[in-house]
């Protein structure tokens, strides 16, 4: 394997956009709370892929390339893990209260 990346960056961005579109479609059409959280995971992974791609391909000008994008992808993974745990805990509380996790039926904002 050579030292440089042989994949055009356009292809990686295309993959990221397709994943984003699939995740957004699922987020808008599915009514199960857990399924919606899975779609959020797809979207977050598409964003992370963009971070990694731009980190690997380096800056546009002749500036010194750093791997700062990987650090931000790391932060993004941490936030995604926190979001998943908190979202699933919220879904458990919602399920105990409403006996369902269907988003359409949880429509009144009372305690």
């Amino acid at each position: 394997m050579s030292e440089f990346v042989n994949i055009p960056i356009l292809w990686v961005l295309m993959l990221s956009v397709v994943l984003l579109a699939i995740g957004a479609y699922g987020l808008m059409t599915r009514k199960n709370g857990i399924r919606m959280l899975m779609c959020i995971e797809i979207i977050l992974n598409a964003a992370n892929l963009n971070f990694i791609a731009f980190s690997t391909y380096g800056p546009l000008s002749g500036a010194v390339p750093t791997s700062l994008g990987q650090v931000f992808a790391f932060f993004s993974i941490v936030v995604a893990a926190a979001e998943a745990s908190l979202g699933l805990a919220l879904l458990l509380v919602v399920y105990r209260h409403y006996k369902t996790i269907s988003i359409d039926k949880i429509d009144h904002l009372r305690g």
Partner: protein
Amino acid sequence: MQALSLELFLFLGISTLTVFFAGLIIWEKNQVRAIIFLTFFLITIAGMYLLLGAQYLAIVQIMVYAGGVVVLFIFAIHLTRSEEFRVRGSINQLRSLPIFAGLLLVLVVALSALIGTEPSPNATLDVPVSELGYLLFGQQLVSFFFMGLILFATIFATIYLVSWLIEHPVAYEMGEEEIEELLNENNGGLE
């Protein structure tokens, strides 16, 4: 035009698998199977990180996502009742418009990436982990501490949310009105 090198071949294969599994996560009716496909999807994303030269993040991806988040999802599914597979809104409206919007988005990104400047050729594949460590604990130290704060707040909030259920195990068999009575007695434990 570039020849189809090994990396391009791998990229095409992995990206096809990634899109395939992402579609299956949405269209699979069984929720537990959807979680299995989510695991496969996360592993293929880790393979994409490896292909792009981010080895450390590939390991983090498999450890955090495929190891931790997936187990959380499985527990959440086992603790809630599985629902029927249904689509919100009318089907006809939802078939064409999102596909059109997604294709438009792909077109816009493709055009902007083609018109924009080409990235510099100094893309490197061998980033040592030590460089990441210097960035994480040097330049980005404040962000790192904020991540710790976010994780602490998340753990605190999760324990607070679930502790109400542990303190009131009767709430498992209660109806909505009984839970409201319990809440009123306790001056609103859930708020």
